[in-house]
């Protein structure tokens, strides 16, 4: 059986439809997790980077990437992971930030590249009313990448992305 070769663009488009298992309004490419796609004849290799090292969704993400590429008719798919450069929330695409906000999750503030251990907490804006008058009620949330807040302006509780 022969299969038509795919282009890297087709692979990227297919991966753009793979949702983040814990935040389904954004895809693995929106999140900046897919770092490289190479097509060599009938062989496709995808390199991705984990968001958090203890993220329990990593296996699901790896399998979903493989399935999405195989659905293009590619038999030989390799999904590799890399830690370098380490994932940062600065890679989340602008339109994905807006979808996060509409979903009720405050998008992350710029992480910058400060190497210092700091006890300061980044400013966060309420995803519903845009107020900065918010309080963090839990520095950890229902998933490793989020924290819990409440807005003192509109009184709504919400989740916010950690800036990493």
């Amino acid at each position, binding site marked *: 059986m022969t299969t038509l070769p795919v282009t890297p663009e087709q692979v990227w488009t297919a991966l753009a439809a793979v949702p983040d298992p814990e935040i389904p309004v954004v895809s693995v490419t929106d999140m900046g997790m897919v770092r490289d796609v190479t097509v060599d004849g009938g062989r496709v290799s995808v390199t991705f980077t984990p968001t958090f090292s*203890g993220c329990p969704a990593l296996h699901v993400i790896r399998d979903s990437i493989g399935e999405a590429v195989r659905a293009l008719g590619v038999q030989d798919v390799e999904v590799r992971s890399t*830690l*370098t450069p380490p994932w940062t929330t600065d890679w989340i695409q602008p339109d994905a930030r807006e979808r996060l906000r509409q979903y009720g999750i405050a998008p992350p503030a710029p992480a910058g590249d400060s190497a210092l*251990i700091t006890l300061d907490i980044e400013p966060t804006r309420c995803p519903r009313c845009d107020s900065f008058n918010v309080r963090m009620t839990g520095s*950890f949330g229902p998933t490793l990448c989020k924290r819990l807040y409440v807005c003192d302006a509109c009184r709504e509780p919400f989740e916010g992305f950690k800036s*990493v």
Partner: protein
Amino acid sequence: MTATEQQAAGTLSGPLRAALIEKLTALADDEIILAHRDGEWTGHAPILEEDIALANIAQDELGHAGLYLELRRALDGSDADQLAFFRDAADYRSARFVELPKGDWAFTMVRQFLFDTYEALWLDAARTSTYAPLAEVAEKAFREEKFHLQHTALWVERLALGTGESRRRTQAALDELWPYAAQLFQPVPGEAELVAARIVPDLDKLRGSWESFVLPHLTGKCGLTLPDAPADAGAGRDTHTEHLAPLLAEMQSVARAVPNAEVW
């Protein structure tokens, strides 16, 4: 295993390789055992948010253990699950500091604060390791560790400056934990050679930075008193408390009951 890991693993001499395996095992074991102790609070923490927070912290620490054991796999082909779930207490290389029972909330927070500071500073220094795969792991884990430190530093402050009872418990936790914390800075066999090759940070220097971070917080900001108890630097990481074996019996029971399980 990444290409960098395989390539780098091939460049180490026999003694350095053996010492690095020993060091990675010690680093991973501290994380596994502390994560289990933190996990014991799941469903029992004083408030729901803290239940969630500590489960998150435990999950991060397990993630770091996974990273270290992946590095070990590149060196000796070992399997992370086999090491975590099918090794007996005598073969674990955890510090006695992390084995102690979870105690009360103050004990858990003081221990986590002392450990998080040590881990964050160790990772910060390890980012310049000459062993590239370790430098990559340190860069990744360092970013996660700062969230732990923010959280536990605030909790120690809150408890120390809270009520008379919370202060008494926080001071008692520090009194008990301080001598044990010294073991975190005790090198594993062969570590001096790893330091000379700039593969891992020098623990003597690290202890200095650790003290200059934790002392102002504990005795300055929080008004706690350091105990004059002698430091526990005696036995190495092959000597454990009586608490490790029962912890492993519980932690490993499911994996050992169904050793060939593929679907959980």
